[in-house]
């Protein structure tokens, strides 16, 4: 048993699933389950592929950090597959390819391999986005994604020219050992930052988000807002923690980009009237918060926040896209009172929204306090102030949204969610509630969940 199976199985099944249209949906559901089981069986540590000892060849790294991400991604893909299996059965193979790409992104320890997985996941993403039936915005996404990954590759090749290696651990060792001036690293680091920033929805590089998420459906919405978001955050976090040694001007620029992303993201959401737009701008701001935590070295909080956001955003996007499909419009005003007959869904939606705002009893609160106290310990007042002001704005529009959705307007709105979806959403919300009260697992973890630095110390 090796961690490489986590990538190989979905990829293989994806090709198999093309052969049988009938079998494909079942394969889509079985694969993430198999992966989840496998995840608990495979040993952690570095996985050498093809017998090439690192730093040669490709190697994978499975540690607590990637474990959390893999668990979240596979579970979410299963759930999203389960909820959309009827309607989007023709997308089964694509979701499987996406799963392979995302698992690979999380696991890989090789920077070029990361680019390859980025493209695999990206191509799958373009196809998933195509389910929105808005070819022009998907095309925007494709161009931007392709340019982004080209930037990443460009930066990577410059690093390769400087240090002669593609293995992440080896690269970090060499960067630490070499006496390269920080300014020489600005170009490659920034190019890679931009490349990943496109996928991570960071502000100036994310113009695709509105077109894709703004017209998303029950499959593409949750896929982008939760699965892709959590994966890219984790990958970004890994690189930010270990590889990117941001200093001087570069650090200033990056922090400025992130803080602007938080503030403007919330402002954009505040000025929106459509449910999906509100949610997508809010996830832009949240993505910036997560990356900001990684830049500040708060690995654990960044990782957990990414996961909590993924769970909340899954609930929020699924409910909203489903309602949009039934009502035919996602203006908040036209969705007024949609929770009247759907108490369970309504409560779950409220829990998810309150968790995103960071309200007590829900997971978001524990996390928000966690990272704010850490930021305070580092006396990072500017970041705290921006995050708090942004949370205020965020809270106001989420509360506005919740009140609208709970209390009916002039027109009666009927949305039926189905039993499976109701149960799944309720479970996701229960998860947020449980981890908002019970923090045992968090107390056992710290920033060492990311073991790259340990691997480097061991040599």
């Amino acid at each position: 048993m090796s961690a490489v199976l986590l990538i190989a199985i979905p990829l293989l099944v994806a090709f198999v699933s093309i052969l049988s249209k009938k079998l494909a949906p079942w394969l889509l559901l079985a694969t993430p389950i198999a992966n989840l089981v496998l995840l608990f069986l495979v040993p952690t540590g570095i996985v050498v592929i093809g017998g090439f000892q690192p730093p040669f060849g490709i190697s994978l790294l499975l540690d607590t950090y990637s474990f959390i991400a893999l668990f979240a991604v596979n579970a979410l893909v299963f759930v999203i597959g389960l909820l959309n299996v009827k309607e989007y059965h023709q997308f089964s193979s694509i979701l499987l390819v996406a799963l392979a790409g995302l698992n690979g992104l999380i696991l890989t320890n090789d920077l070029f391999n990361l680019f390859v997985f980025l493209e695999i996941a990206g191509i799958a993403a373009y196809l998933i986005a195509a389910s929105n039936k808005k070819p022009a915005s998907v095309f925007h996404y494709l161009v931007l994604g392709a340019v982004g990954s080209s930037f990443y590759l460009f930066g990577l090749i410059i690093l390769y020219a400087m240090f002669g290696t593609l293995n992440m651990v080896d690269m970090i060792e060499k960067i630490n050992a070499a006496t390269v001036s920080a300014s020489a690293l600005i170009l490659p680091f920034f190019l890679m930052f931009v490349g990943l920033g496109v996928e991570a929805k960071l502000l100036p590089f994310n113009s695709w988000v509105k077109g894709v998420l703004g017209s998303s459906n029950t499959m593409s919405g949750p896929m982008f807002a939760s699965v892709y978001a959590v994966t890219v955050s984790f990958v970004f976090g890994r690189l930010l923690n270990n590889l990117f040694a941001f200093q001087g001007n570069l650090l200033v620029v990056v922090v400025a980009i992130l803080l602007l992303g938080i503030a403007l993201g919330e402002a954009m959401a505040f000025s929106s009237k459509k449910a999906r737009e509100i949610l997508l701008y809010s996830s832009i701001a949240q993505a910036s918060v997560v990356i900001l935590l990684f830049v500040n070295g708060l690995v654990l909080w960044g990782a957990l926040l990414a996961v909590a956001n993924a769970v909340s955003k899954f609930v929020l996007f699924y409910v909203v896209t489903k309602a949009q499909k039934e009502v035919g419009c996602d203006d908040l005003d036209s969705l007024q009172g949609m929770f009247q007959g759907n108490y369970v869904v309504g409560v779950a939606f409220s829990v998810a929204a309150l968790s995103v705002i960071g309200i007590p009893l829900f997971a978001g609160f524990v996390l928000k306090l966690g990272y704010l106290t850490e930021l305070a310990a580092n006396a990072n007042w500017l970041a705290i102030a921006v995050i708090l002001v942004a949370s205020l704005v965020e809270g106001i529009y989420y509360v506005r949204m919740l009140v609208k959705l709970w209390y009916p307007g002039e027109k009666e709105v009927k949305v039926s969610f189905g039993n499976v979806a109701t149960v799944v959403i309720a479970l996701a919300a229960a998860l947020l509630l449980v981890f908002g009260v019970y923090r045992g697992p968090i107390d056992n973890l710290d920033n060492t969940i990311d073991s790259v630095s340990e691997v480097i110390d061991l040599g």
Partner: protein
Amino acid sequence: MANLELLLLIVLGTGLVAYLLTKVNQFLGSVFTIAATTFAFVSLAAYGFNGGLDTTVQWIPWLSFSVTNLGFFFAIIIVFVYLMVSFFHPYFLDHYKYPSVYNMLFLWSLAGVLGTFFTENTIQLFFFFEFIVWTSMFLIPMGKSKKAAVSYYGFSAAGSFAMLFGILVMANVSGSYGLSTGLAALTGSGKEALVFVLFLIAGFAKLGAFPFHIWLPEAHGNAPHPFSPVLSGALVKLGAFVAVFALIRIAPFSVTIDAIALPVAQWIVAILGSLSIVFGTLMAIREDDAKKLLAYSSMSHGGYILVAFSLLDSVAFAGGFYHILAHALASAGAFMAIAAVARQTGTTKMSELGGLIHKMPVTYIVYLVAIISMAGIPPMGGFISKWLIFQAVLNKGMVLVTIAVFFGSIGSFLYVFRPLAALFLGQWITKYDGQVKEAPLLMMIPMLIITALNVYTGVFPDWLLGVTNGVITDLGYPALQVAVAAPFTLNGYYGTLAPAIISLVFAVGVVVAAIIFFVLKKSRKVTLMDTYTAANFVHNEELLHYTKDFYAPLERLYEKYTTKMRDFYNALAYKVKEVGQLAKYLFMSKFAEVALFWTILILIFLLWGEF
């Protein structure tokens, strides 16, 4: 020994039970809610006054409790208001969209109150603060307006986030999240001014003091009728709680103004408090909705509390703490009376009501006593507290503040009298013929209790002042001199007050008036339309109404400026929206060009001068 953690968990648990019971039967669930709040109040009162609250048990690892006189003082008042209001539930729930949720969230916010005031841990303080905010937030939209919940959340969250920022700064200085250690460590750290300002923002926002008063009329006026007393009588006092930390326990280093022996910071707060008093009074005078009027009066009373706590003087502190109690009772009483009226008639607009004294005499008495206390007239509690505050302000020689506090007191006469005249006195409005009768017995109980307490606090303040003295000595100031033997005098700076004797004089006056009233001939009752003018009968009842343009000449002086603050906040929200739209235009409307443009621009910035 009563275990606080157990009490908190029980209240949380009863919330769930109340939810289920209300689902089955609304009346049953409401009675259960009454039982649960009674349990909370009784156990708190029975054990709290003799220091029997146990805080040692630790079932939930991240919760710790500690009892202080300050916290207990606030908690017992607020839980009492909750208890009184819970009696209203059986008669109001059927009006609301989600009655079972109403009972549940009501009890949960009560649990939040228990947590807030009995903690030494600042993070926990913030936790319960926010907990109260969201539980109460969902209750408000069940009333009249959905927007009210948003503005309530906005201002409350602004306050709590300011407090959180202060807490984080404090923890950074002291290295721990203890409240006392944190406050103590601030002295001389150079950060005290920042924390002072942040805590005060929290205090002002929760208290609804100027310039954060916009949410008060929105939330109090539009909340469900039985929840308005909780908001006004109980939850705004959270702001006073935080303000006490800032004003008394942090006391930042700043230049002292010799003439009034007060630091500049405190002086500024006193001025802001006076502005709250003045603006609240002026706004209340021109309000037509009785609940909104009372909300503005809460703003003005919040100003009194702030002024009292900014004077750094034990007479003022005694006045401030006593005012918290007196205002909680008075405003709960007044709001409950209005709620009773609203239940029977379906409106709170003064211009649509009149002559209710004939049908609801008890409610009339309740309201009358409450507003007497609010206006600071003996023999009610509000008089004692205002007397103490006046003494302290005069003693400091703060001219502007003195003018403001007296203005507010006189202004109270002007505005609290209006609902009395409009709702209860005046002519009977014929459209309610046969519909209106006195409020049900279960609602009468809390109203009468509160009325009795309003009188009690005014006649025998000695024991309660002993309680506030405990709080004041805890804060490091000498206790107010109160005679424990009859005739229970209290000493201010300019003389001694004997409330019992004053009350006796009043009682004699009331008896004499009653005798005259009963002996003399009865007046003849006429309806509003029983008149004519310029030889024509008038058909528009409303124009003839007593309160129509009651203070028109006065209002005309300032009516242009009444919307300024609201406009400011609307403009602020609009600006945020504009920024959002600009960002959308800049970053979202075009595609790849934008990303590339910024990337290249940033690269040029980064690499400038490198090659």
